[in-house]
């Protein structure tokens, strides 16, 4: 029972992390049709923001958490302003290539000016401990991760349903020009989408880094890959799809980790991708995706 509960919690916290990342990717995609392959670098930059703050300003370590989230958000907004805005009206492939370009540039700046090797970033002590519920010892980090994911989701829902810019983002997913026709600035909608994706990536980054205890220039790649897989799994362009895809991906990974015999556990990701392939063959629109999310523009 203990073991089962432990693994469930594990799945939920990993799934939550993937969901946060996938949502960030999906929100930018739904608004401007761009798969931001530099999304992983938001995590990296949030991490390095923590590292540099600690280096130059010192403790307390708990203050690094808002620094990471803010850093990732500012990085996302900067990506939009510097890199994506100039190519906004170009064909989609240009945006895609720009995203790869941003990713490569950020990685190499960090390699050249900081270091190729990982740099340590400490986690606040209270996040690393366990707490007891009856007989069970539960890691604070995992519970916190799941709870924060839920909070972030609630915040996102409020934004999308209760604010003008949130409504505009939902409307823009289908017909951006019509949104501009009511006088809402395209720049504002897109910047908000990037800022939201940055905040979500920053939150995920706090947890990713507290697990690894260090930052390095290429740390964003695997999380990006997971987010992309989660989006594909759930249905690209759909926010619900990103959420479901993230949670499902987390659960499947933990499940495979548990059931696979130790000598083939190393191939876990291969099994995961096999599953994604199956989903794509059997239900190409994703688990909860509707073709309408993307293709049904009003004539």
């Amino acid at each position, binding site marked *: 029972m203990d073991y089962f509960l432990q693994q469930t919690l594990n799945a939920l916290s990993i799934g939550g992390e993937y969901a946060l990342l996938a949502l960030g990717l999906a929100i930018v995609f739904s608004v401007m049709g761009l798969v931001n392959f530099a999304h992983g670098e938001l995590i990296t930059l949030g991490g390095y923001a923590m590292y540099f703050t600690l280096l130059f300003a010192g403790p307390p370590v708990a203050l690094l958490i808002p620094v990471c989230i803010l850093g990732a958000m500012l990085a996302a907004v900067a990506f939009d302003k510097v890199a994506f805005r100039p190519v906004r009206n170009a064909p989609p492939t240009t945006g895609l290539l720009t995203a790869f370009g941003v990713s490569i540039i950020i990685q190499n700046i960090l390699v050249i000016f900081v270091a190729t090797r990982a740099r340590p970033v400490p986690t606040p002590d209270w996040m690393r401990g366990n707490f007891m519920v009856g007989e069970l010892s539960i890691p604070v980090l995992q519970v916190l991760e799941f709870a924060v994911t839920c909070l972030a989701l609630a915040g996102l829902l409020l934004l999308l349903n209760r604010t*003008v810019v949130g*409504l505009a983002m939902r*409307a823009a997913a289908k017909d951006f020009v019509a949104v*501009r*026709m009511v*006088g*809402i600035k395209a720049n504002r909608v897109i910047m908000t989408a990037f800022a939201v994706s940055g905040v979500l990536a920053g939150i995920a980054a706090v947890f990713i880094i507290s697990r690894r205890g260090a930052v390095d220039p290429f740390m964003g790649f695997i999380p990006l890959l997971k987010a992309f897989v989660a989006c594909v799994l759930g249905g690209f362009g759909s926010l619900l799809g990103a959420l479901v895809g993230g949670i499902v991906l987390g659960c499947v990974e933990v499940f495979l980790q548990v059931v696979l015999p130790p000598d083939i556990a190393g191939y876990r990701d291969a099994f995961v991708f096999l599953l994604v392939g199956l989903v794509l063959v059997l239900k190409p629109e994703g688990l909860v995706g509707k073709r309408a999310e993307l293709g049904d523009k009003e004539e």
Partner: protein
Amino acid sequence: MTTILEVRSAVVRYGAITAVRNVDLSVDRGEIVAVLGPNGAGKTTLVSAIAGILPLTQGSMHFDGQDITRLGIEEIVRRGMSLTPEGRRVFADLTVRENLVLGGSSQTDRALFEQDMQRMFEMFPILHERSKSPAKTLSGGEQQMLAIARSLMSRPRLLLLDEPSLGLAPRIVDQIFRLIDELRRDGLTILVVEQNAAEALAFADRAYVLNVGEVVYAGTSAEVAASDDLAEHYLGGQLS
């Protein structure tokens, strides 16, 4: 009467195709002006360019005496010109109320915003009834009303209506045109693009007839309606 919109020598090109050639058009305050013509005459292109959706290749546009030739859609809406586009383009997944909220998003005064919302619900009781339903669940006529109400939420001084009767049942078309007439009585200036020439001429003050991107005739509605030549060549035959 003072001129509210003045378009001079407008040319719009898409790549190699010239959709609008050298069009001069003006609208006076308080008028209803119709832009008529057959399918593909460049009517929608012209009105899209006026609204700032498409750039003018050549020519100039002045709204209320100010040059708006190079302004984007968002800025033009904020200056008081609003387009109800062809095909309505309501925000399908959003509720009726949310559509109107976005329509009024340029309004910074909260009290005026609520007042406008109330006014729309009085003008279109059906929208009040369906205020919590997603816009995609509305009928075509209801969506057209929502699209017009959404445009009105930004308090335009000039309303551009692109094919408001397209794809609607005759009974609904009458209703929409009666509404347009009411709006004029409230002091709104309207530029309306229509394929349905007979209906449009019945309430417009003046009309421009477009064919292959050029103005082939401009005059009062009575003059246009009286011309058998225009009717036969550009306006689908019968006008009255």
